[in-house]
C-alpha cells in the first residue's frame, strides 16, 4: 500500500535517450563542425599558453595581481603558481587552464547574446528560466553521457559538457543586468533619438557591465569545477591526476593535484573578480 504502484511507472529517460541517439545520427555534420570549432579554440589557446616560457608566465601572473590589486596579491599568486610547477604539474595546469579559457570564451559568446535577447523578450525568458534551472541543478556528471555520445572521448566532449554546465549564470546575470538598467536612463537614450542598437551599445551594456562581469566570474568558476569532473571522459589536465589518484587511493598524488586545482581556482577567481570591479561605476 505504501509503495508507489508498479503499473503506473513511466520512464522519461528512454525518450531522452531516443532523442540523443536521433540527434547523433541526424546531426552528425553539426557535431563535426562543433568539434572542429572547439578543437581549434582549445589547441590554439593551449599553443599560446605553452608558447609562454614558465618564468614569463609566473611574471605575468605577478604583474596581473599587482596591477589589478596589490603587490601582496601579485606576490601571493606568483608563489601559488610556482608551487604548482614545483609539485610537477605545470603542463597539466596549462592544459586545464586552456580548457577553462576555451569553455568560458564559448560560454560568453553563447550566453551574452541570449541573455540580452531574453531581457527584451518575456516569452523567451519564460522558456529559459526552467531550462537554466535544470542546467544548473542537474548533477554535472549527467552531461558527460550525451557529450560522450556526441563527441566521443577526449577534450571536445569535456569542453561541451563544461559549456552546458557553466553558461547559465552568464545568461542569467546578463539578462538581469540589462533589465536592471534604470528606466529613465533607457528613456533618455531613446528620447535623444538613439536606435535600439545605439541604446544597447552606448547605454545598456556599459550600465550592465559590472553585473555581466560578475556572471562571467561565476561562469569561470563553474567551468573550473566542471573541467575536473570531465576528466572522467578523458579530458587531460589536473582532473586526470585526481581521477588516477582516486583509482589508486594515492593520498599524496590526490593532495598534490587537489591543491594545484585550488591554487589555479583562487587565481582565476581573484583575477576575474578584480576585472569586474574595474567596471563598477555607480
Amino acid at each position, binding site marked *: 500500500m505504501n509503495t508507489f504502484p508498479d503499473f503506473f511507472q513511466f520512464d522519461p529517460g528512454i525518450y531522452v535517450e531516443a532523442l540523443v541517439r536521433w540527434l547523433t545520427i541526424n546531426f552528425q555534420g553539426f557535431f563535426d563542425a562543433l568539434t572542429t570549432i572547439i578543437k581549434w579554440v582549445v589547441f590554439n589557446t593551449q599553443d599560446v599558453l605553452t608558447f609562454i616560457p614558465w618564468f614569463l608566465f609566473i611574471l605575468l601572473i605577478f604583474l596581473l595581481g599587482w596591477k589589478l590589486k596589490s603587490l601582496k596579491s601579485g606576490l601571493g599568486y606568483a608563489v601559488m603558481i610556482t608551487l604548482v610547477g614545483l609539485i610537477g604539474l605545470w603542463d597539466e595546469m596549462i592544459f586545464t587552464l586552456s580548457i577553462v579559457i576555451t569553455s568560458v570564451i564559448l560560454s560568453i559568446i553563447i550566453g551574452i547574446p541570449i541573455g540580452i535577447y531574453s531581457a527584451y523578450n518575456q516569452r523567451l525568458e519564460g522558456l529559459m528560466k526552467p531550462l537554466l534551472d535544470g542546467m544548473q541543478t542537474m548533477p554535472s556528471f549527467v552531461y558527460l553521457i550525451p557529450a560522450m555520445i556526441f563527441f566521443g572521448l577526449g577534450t571536445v566532449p569535456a569542453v561541451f559538457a563544461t559549456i552546458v554546465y557553466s553558461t547559465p549564470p552568464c545568461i542569467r546575470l546578463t539578462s538581469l543586468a540589462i533589465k536592471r538598467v*534604470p528606466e*529613465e*536612463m533607457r*528613456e*533618455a*537614450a*531613446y*528620447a*535623444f*533619438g*538613439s*536606435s535600439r542598437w*545605439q541604446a544597447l551599445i*552606448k*547605454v545598456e551594456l*556599459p*550600465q550592465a*557591465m559590472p553585473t555581466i562581469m560578475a556572471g562571467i566570474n561565476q561562469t569561470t568558476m563553474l567551468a573550473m569545477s566542471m573541467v575536473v569532473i570531465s576528466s572522467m571522459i578523458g579530458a587531460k589536465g589536473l582532473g586526470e591526476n585526481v581521477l588516477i589518484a582516486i583509482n589508486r587511493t594515492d593520498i599524496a598524488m590526490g593532495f598534490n593535484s587537489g591543491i594545484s586545482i585550488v591554487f589555479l581556482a583562487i587565481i582565476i577567481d581573484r583575477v576575474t573578480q578584480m576585472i569586474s570591479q574595474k567596471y563598477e*561605476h*555607480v
Partner: protein
Amino acid sequence: MSKKIEVKNLVKIFGSKPKLALKRLKDGWSKDKILNTTGQTVGVNNASFSVDDGEFFVIMGLSGSGKSTLIRCLNLLNMPTSGEVIVDGEDIVKFDKKQLREFRQKKVAMVFQNFGLFTHRTLLGNVEYGLEIRNIDKDKRQQIALETLESVGLKGWEYKKPTELSGGMQQRVGLARALANDPDILLMDEPFSALDPLIRRDMQVELLEIQSKLKKTIVFITHDINEAFKLGDRVAVMKDGKIVQQGNPEDILNNPSDEYIEDFVKSIDRTKVIQAKNIMRKPNALVSMKDGVRVAIKEMQANDISSVFVVGEKMKLEGIVTIDDCVEAVKNKQSSLKDLLRHDYYKTSEDEYIEHLLENATKSRYPIVVVNDDNRLLGIIVRTSILSGLLPSNSDTETISF
C-alpha cells in the same frame, strides 16, 4: 504667435487590449469601470491642447493624473492609442522609425525627474550624447558640450561622473544635455521635484532666464501649483487622465472650473502668483504739475484722501503731495506744486509679485505706485487691495471691494 505643438483628442491606454478599452471610453465608461472590467489602464483620456512657439506651458496634476504619460506622448516614448500630436504642422504619430529618430534628435529634448543621467559617462560624455547619436564629429560635439556645460554653471566639472554631484548639479547636467542638441522644444518631466526647496527655487529662476534668452517652447510637468503658476505662461490642470482646465495662472486662480481645482488653488501662496498689475487700480485723483496747490487740495477733499500723486506730461510720475503741505503752502501764498513734492513713496513695476510689496505696503504712508519703464504712472495699489488680492476666490473679494 504660431502654434508649435497641437494635441488633439489624445488617448493613451496601457494594457493588452487597448482597442476594446478605447471603444468603452468612447461609449462614456469611466476610467475605473474600464480598469475593473477589462484590466486596461487609461493613462490619458481625450486630452487636447496647443502650445505656442516660445511659450512656457505647464501641465499640473497629482501623481497618477496622467501628466507624465501625456508628456511622453509628445516625443512618442509612449505611443498614443488614438489622437494626433501635431508638431510644426506634422502629425508625429504617423512618423516612421527614421522620421521619429530624426524628430527626437533635432526638434525635441527631454529632462527627467530623476535626471536619467548616464552614470558610466562623464558630464561631458552625457552632454555630448545627443550629438554623438547624430554622428557629429568629436571635436565639434565636445566643443558644443563644453560651452553648454559652462552656460549652466558647471565649468571645471566636465570630467567628473554624475554620481559625484549633488542633485541640483545633476539636474543642471540634465538640462545641459537637453540644450546641447539645440532643440525647439524642451519636455521637462517634473525636473525639480527631486530637489530641495532652496535649490529648486534657484533652478526655477535659472530656467526662466534660459527661457527668456533662448525662447524655447517648453512643456513642463509639475505637481506643485506654486511652481506651475510661477513658471507657466499657461497652465493645464490634469485629473484622472483628463485636462480639467487650462488657461493663464490668473484665470485659473480666480475662476477655478471645479472643486478639484479649487482645492488645488487653496493650497497656493497667492503672494507668489498675484502681481501688481492684477490688483492695481486707476487712481481716483491725480493732479498735473501745471495744476496749482488749490486744485490739489480740491481733488483731495473731493476724494476724501490726504495725499495725491502728481504727474507731468504723458503721465510721467513727478511725486506726491500731502494735504498738510498744500494747506501750509496756501497760507504762505505759494501756488506751485514743485516745491511741495515728496518722493518717499514706494514705486514698483507691474510684474512685481505681492510677496515683495507686502512689507512696503504696511510701512509706507502712501499708496504704492505702479510705473512702467519710462516712469509713467500705470496705477496705484492701496493696502486694502493687497489684502483683497490675497483672499482665495473672487466671490469673496467682491464683498470687500472698495
